[in-house]
């Protein structure tokens, strides 16, 4: 495996120079001739009926080109989840009701931003304030205010793409107020498992909402050409084809009449995949006015009205044998998805999806509820459920280990899954580095010496140190629209190649890793590759950079496309070189040579010429495609957890050493260790970068990040008040790669960009307990919580 020329090498990013020189164009940088600027009027109330909207004064303001309200868009509905069971519940602008502070009410398009903003102040809205509810548990009560009382039809925009329209009603069997999603999965016999257990423990954990904080704010530019009837859009997004699909459904335009153009994306982390009102409205206004329209959100709007991570309550009960073997687990998850469904039904499904691949629990019951509240909308955020569920399970396991006097690492060894295991839903772990990861991480954190658990000496120091560990997993793509990625490799006269891929580089380095895959497979050098990406007209479909699909799914598509091009080259070369079997040929640096006689070679350009002359002008174009999960053709069931989820799970084992200042309550993360099983790493530097980003985000979520909401009002919508890590918070970081080989991955690779945000939370939580001897069951672990736990306040 080590004789690769490009794979696994620390090749610098191909988009590095354009970014380092400030030449990379992001959506916020786009400016078109005649462009108008849109601004959004938002609800100041968490729950209110709209009695009347008067836009007449705003329309009179010179420079205002259009004002639109929900009345103009009554029929438009869309959502991240749109199935017969969960019909779309979002509208671009509020119709009849507003449901959270920040809900979109009207949009103004004007000659400049200042005029648009002025116009917003001239719109008069009469509201009737309604009772509101702000926590999931309160919203579930029978007498809670009903947030969605509109009649949603049980049809699905996704029907034409594989969601069956079932005749039977999808009225939920569970009768709970404000329920937006329900997942129930079980296997084995949980009650029996508890009966056979030597020790049973129950815990409740709570994690708050967090913000993505992509450095590039959300923005959209739309330009409709009435002559060609084509809509051009520039979006800061992770999935151009999914956005095009949403736009085509909501605007009622054929998909081919919408072109998403390439831009660089200034961070996404899950928060740029849903369709947003500002995107729809920019497109709608551009069609209406025949001029380009840009809507850029300011930082406060990004915090308030894009997406947050779901605040989640996890209740877990586990039964174990004396030796630490887990016999039974009963997990309940309640997610607050805010005013609209967002990804509520997905996150409660994924909490199961990221719970069960780690430990082999023979008797297992999982139930998840996603609940409407009058808070901002929650959507995917890096790990999507993994941080919440992994923190809870491994905190709980640590408590059990302590209760029964076992070493947590030993207990983990006893219960983790292994390569070859088949999960209860049928997914097979063709690669799984959990055991090796545990060994590596425990060693790197110096577990035996740093763990205080079994030490008897009492220390009087103000600063207390401790160590913790936790495990996590992540999918490598799944079946979600558009279900597959394709790639095209076009060869040029000189033997160099252009790679066409719909995958967007959102910072994770996909243009580079995909180029490495192409270079390795085809036998050309990195500088011979030009990437054309992120454009729905130029590029073939792609799953998008979410669900961690790019390395495995798009990577395979690129590898197949390269192999296709190579086969065509070799066939031509075989004729020229007089070889019968193309197996006898190999390629390197744009040359084709005989394996046995490398001096006998021709240049790619000669083979291409021969192909043009001798094969109907074929200039050699390679094609490849790969499904989100080749073994199935359907979405997994969110409600029942049935069906296959992913072709390969990435894993990580993470450990932390912390120092707690018992006087101030401040927790300092001294060292963060990640042993990541991402299969075979395509580019170590990039893999490490992903891990560092995950660790930093995870540490932020563990120790300081929290969206402060008080009656639906966001109190910290700025970087000054929302405490995300800065350079001074950087811990010593150790990354170990458990280089497994994922047989289904390109060159053995699988996901790396999401999973390891999750384990660091539990590792820190467990380390804090180890340091101070008290458990904090909620995140973030703020100084206040520490002092409270220590009984000091």
């Amino acid at each position, binding site marked *: 495996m080590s004789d690769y020329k490009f794979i696994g090498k620390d090749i610098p990013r191909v988009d590095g120079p354009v970014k*380092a*020189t400030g030449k990379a164009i992001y959506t916020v940088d786009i400016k078109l001739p005649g462009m108008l600027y849109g601004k959004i009027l938002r609800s100041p109330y968490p729950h209110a009926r709209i009695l009347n909207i008067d836009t007449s004064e705003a329309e009179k303001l010179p420079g205002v080109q259009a004002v639109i309200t929900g009345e103009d868009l009554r029929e438009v509905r869309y959502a991240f989840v749109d199935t017969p069971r969960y019909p779309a519940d979002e509208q671009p602008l509020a119709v009849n009701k507003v449901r959270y502070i920040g809900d979109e009410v009207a949009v103004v398009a004007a000659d400049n931003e200042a005029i648009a903003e002025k116009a917003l102040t001239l719109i008069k809205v009469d509201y009737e304030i309604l009772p509101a509810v702000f926590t999931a548990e309160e919203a579930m009560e029978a007498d809670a205010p009903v947030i969605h009382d509109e009649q949603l039809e049980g049809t699905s925009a996704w029907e034409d793409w594989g969601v069956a329209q079932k005749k039977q009603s999808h009225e939920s069997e569970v009768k709970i107020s404000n329920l937006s999603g329900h997942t129930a999965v079980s296997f084995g016999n949980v009650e029996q498992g508890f009966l056979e257990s030597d020790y049973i423990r129950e815990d409740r954990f709570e994690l708050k909402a967090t913000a993505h904080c*992509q450095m*590039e704010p959300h923005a959209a530019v739309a330009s409709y050409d009435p002559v060609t009837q084509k809509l051009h859009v520039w979006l800061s997004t992770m999935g151009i084809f999914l956005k095009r699909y949403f736009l085509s459904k909501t605007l009622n335009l054929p998909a081919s009449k919408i072109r998403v153009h390439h831009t660089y994306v*200034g961070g996404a982390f899950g928060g740029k995949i849903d369709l947003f009102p500002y995107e729809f409205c920019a497109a709608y206004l551009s069609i209406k006015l025949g001029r380009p329209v840009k809507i850029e959100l300011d930082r406060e709007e990004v915090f308030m009205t894009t997406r947050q991570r779901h605040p989640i309550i996890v209740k877990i009960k586990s039964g174990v044998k004396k030796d630490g073997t887990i016999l039974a687990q009963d997990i309940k998850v309640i997610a607050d998805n805010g005013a609209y469904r967002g990804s509520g039904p997905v996150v409660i499904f994924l909490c199961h999806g990221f719970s069960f691949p780690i430990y082999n629990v023979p008797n297992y019951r999982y139930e998840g509820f996603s609940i409407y509240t009058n808070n901002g909308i929650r959507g995917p955020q890096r790990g999507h459920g993994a941080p919440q569920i992994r923190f809870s399970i491994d905190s709980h396991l640590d408590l059990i280990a302590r209760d029964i006097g076992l070493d947590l690492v030993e207990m983990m060894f006893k219960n983790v899954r292994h390569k070859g295991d088949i999960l209860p839903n049928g997914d097979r772990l063709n690669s799984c580095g959990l055991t090796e990861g545990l060994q590596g991480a425990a060693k790197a954190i110096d577990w035996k010496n740093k763990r205080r658990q079994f030490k008897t000496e009492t220390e009087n120091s103000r600063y207390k140190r401790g160590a913790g560990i936790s495990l996590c997993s992540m999918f490598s793509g799944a079946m979600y629209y558009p279900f597959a990625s394709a790639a095209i490799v076009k060869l040029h006269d000189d033997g160099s190649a252009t790679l066409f891929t719909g995958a967007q580089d959102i910072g994770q380095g996909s243009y580079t890793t995909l180029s490495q895959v192409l270079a390795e497979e085809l036998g050309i050098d990195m500088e011979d590759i030009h990437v054309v990406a992120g454009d729905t007209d130029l590029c073939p479909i792609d799953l998008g950079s979410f669900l961690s699909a790019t390395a495995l799914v798009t990577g395979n598509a690129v590898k197949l496309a390269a192999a296709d091009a190579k086969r065509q080259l070799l066939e031509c070369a075989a004729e020229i070189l007089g070889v019968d079997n193309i197996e006898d040929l190999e390629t390197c640096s744009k040359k084709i040579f005989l394996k046995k006689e490398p001096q006998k070679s021709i240049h790619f350009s000669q083979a291409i010429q021969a192909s043009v002359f001798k094969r109907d002008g074929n200039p050699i174009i390679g094609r490849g495609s790969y499904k989100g999960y080749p073994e199935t053709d359907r979405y997994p069931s969110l409600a029942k957890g049935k069906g296959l989820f992913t072709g390969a799970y990435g894993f990580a084992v993470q450990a932390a050493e912390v120092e707690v200042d018992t006087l101030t309550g401040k927790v300092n993360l001294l060292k963060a260790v990640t042993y990541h099983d991402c299969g075979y790493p395509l580019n170590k530097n990039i893999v490490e970068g992903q891990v560092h980003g995950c660790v930093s985000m995870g540490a932020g979520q563990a120790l300081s990040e929290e969206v402060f909401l008080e009656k639906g009002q966001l109190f910290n919508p700025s970087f000054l008040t929302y405490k995300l890590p800065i350079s001074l918070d950087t811990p010593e970081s150790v990354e170990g790669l458990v280089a497994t080989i994922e047989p289904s991955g390109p060159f053995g690779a699988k996901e790396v960009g999401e999973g390891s945000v999750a384990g660091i939370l539990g590792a820190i939580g467990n380390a804090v307990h180890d340091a101070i001897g008290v458990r904090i069951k909620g995140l973030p672990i703020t100084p206040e919580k520490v002092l409270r736990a220590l009984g000091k306040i």
Partner: protein
Amino acid sequence: MNKMIELKLNGETRKIYVNDNQTLLEVLREDLGLTGTKKGCNQGECGACTVLLEGKPVSSCLILAVKVNGKSIMTIEGVAEEGHLHPIQEVFNEKGAIQCGFCTPGMILVTKDLLDKNPRPTFKEIKDAISGNICRCTGYIKIIEAIQSLAER
């Protein structure tokens, strides 16, 4: 456009008209098309809009354009010379200090200021120098390593 200001922008003397209430960031991005200077928050809290004013890093979203009359400004567009990447740019790329790239222009400019003043900064000095610049992608580690490797040169 009611005031003319004169400034030395990336080494070139420019006369431009600005409004009283326009920030330097706005003028750079909207009027001069220098979009390499990024707007992350427009509140002076992220460092994405960093430019060098008289050689010192400042948040251009907090400075009114009229205030820079007669001053010199360097933006990210002025860092590479004659088509060659500046060593900081090169090393940032080699060491993996760039991911989404949105914080990169600001990071490179504060690094330039740091190394111009202090060619051999310590680990702590590096962390301090970039502490006003938020990067959500890298966890800062590879940025710090890149600057360290420049300091070792």
